[in-house]
C-alpha cells in the first residue's frame, strides 16, 4: 500500500537536491565582488526608506482566514463526491444542507464587505 508512495518520495528528494545543487553551483561559479551599494535593498535607485518589516493591509489576513474556512468545506466535499452514488439521496440532501449553511456565511461575508478591495 505505502509502496506506491516510494516513487513520490524519490521524486521529492530529486527535486530538493536539484534545487540545492543549482543554488550551490551558482554560488560557487559566480563571481564574488560585494560592495555596500550593491547589497542595499533595491528601491528604484532611491535611498531605501525604513525597512520592509512593517504593517501591511489587513485584507491579506482576511483572505487567508476565509480561505481556511472554505477550503475545509471543499475537503468535506471530496469524500462525498467519491461515494455519493452509494450515499444516494440522503447523502445529497445532507450535503446540500451543509453547503447552503456555508453559503449563508459566504453571503454574510460578502454583505459585510470583506470581499471588497479599495
Amino acid at each position, binding site marked *: 500500500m505505502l*509502496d*506506491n*508512495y*516510494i*516513487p*513520490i518520495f*524519490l*521524486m*521529492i528528494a*530529486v*527535486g*530538493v537536491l*536539484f*534545487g540545492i545543487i*543549482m*543554488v550551490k*553551483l*551558482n*554560488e560557487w*561559479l*559566480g*563571481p564574488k*565582488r560585494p560592495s*555596500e551599494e550593491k*547589497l*542595499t*535593498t*533595491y*528601491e*528604484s535607485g532611491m535611498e531605501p526608506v525604513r*525597512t*520592509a*518589516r512593517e504593517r*501591511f493591509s489587513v485584507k*491579506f489576513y482576511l*483572505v*487567508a482566514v*476565509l*480561505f481556511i474556512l*472554505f*477550503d475545509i468545506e*471543499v475537503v468535506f*466535499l*471530496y469524500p462525498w*463526491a*467519491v*461515494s*455519493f*452514488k452509494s450515499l*444516494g439521496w440522503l447523502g*445529497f440532501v445532507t*450535503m*446540500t444542507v451543509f*453547503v447552503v449553511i456555508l*453559503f449563508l456565511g*459566504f453571503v454574510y461575508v*460578502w454583505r459585510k464587505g470583506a*470581499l471588497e*478591495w*479599495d
Partner: protein
Amino acid sequence: MDILIASTKIAVVLAAMLTSVVFLVLVERRMSAFIQNRIGPNRVGPYGLLQSVADVVKLLMKEDIVPAKANKPLHDLAPIISIAVAMTTFAVIPFGNAIELFGTTIKLQIADVNIGILYILAITSLGVYGLTLAGWSSNNKYSLLGGLRSSAQMISYELSMGLAIIGVILMAGTLRLDVIVEKQTEYLLGWLPAWNIFLQPVAFITFFIAAFAETNRLPFDLPEAEPELVGGFHTEYTGLKFGLFFLAEYMNMITASAIVVTLFLGGWHLPYADMLGLSGFALSILQVLTFCGKIVLVLLFFIAIRWTLPRFRYDQLMSLGWKVMLPLTLANALVTALILLAF
C-alpha cells in the same frame, strides 16, 4: 526491480520536462515577437534553438547577490521550495496507458496512488510557500507586496480549482487519475468521445481560469506586475536563484496543462485510435504522443493568451475569484450531483 522502473520513469519525465522548458521559453519568446511584429531571438544556434541554453549558462556565471538586510537562509530556501514543488507535481499524472515492454506490463504513471487529485492539490498549495518566503526574506517592499499578492491570489483560486474538480470526481467516482482517464475513453451517443470538457463545460472553464491564476500567468500575473512592483517577489534575486523561479514557473505551466488534459481533455485518449489496427506497443506509443500533443496545444493557448490580453486590476482579480468563480463552481458541483442522481 520496481525501484529501478520507478527511477527510470522519474528520470525520463524530469528530462522531458526540463527539455520542454528550454523549448517552451524559446517558443514563447518567438511567438511574442511574432505577435508584436519583432524578430525575436534567432542568433544562438539554428533558428535560435540554443538561446535558452545560453541563458542558463549566463545565469549560472552571474554573481549571487543576497541583500545585506535579507534573511539569507530563507532567501536560499525559497527557490528550492519552488523548484522542488514544480518538479514533483507531475508524479501522479498518467502520460499513457499501460505499455508492454520486455514481457512486463509497465504503467505509464510515476506513482500509482489512489488519492491522485488530492496529491496534486496538496503539492501545488506548497508552492505558495516558495513565493511568500521569497517575498518576505528579501526585506524589500516590492518583494513583500508581490509575495503577499501571489499568496492571496493563489489561495483564492485554489478554492475554485478544488470545487471545479469535484464535478469531475462526481462523474468518475474516484480520485485515481488513471481511472478518470479510462472513463473518458468511452463514447457518447456512439461517436463523441466522453471527455469531461463535453460533460463538464462549466468545470472546465473555471478550472482553466484557475490554472492561469495558479501559475501566475497573464492576465493573472499581478505578483510580478512590472510597472508597479518591479519584479514582484523575485526583485532581489539574481543568477540561477532567479533562474530557478523562472524554471519553476514554466514547469508549473507544463504540469497545469497536463492536469487540464488529464481531467478534461481525455488524457492519452486518441479517439478511434483502436480502429487503426495497430499493435499494442505502437498504440501505446501513439497514446503517449497524443498526450504530449494535447499538452502542446494547451501550452500554445497559454502563450497566446499572455500576449493578447491586458492585466487585471487586483480588486477585479479578487472579485472574479470570490464572487463569480466560487459560487459558480459550488453550484456546478451540486447540479452535477443532482443530475447524476436523478438519471
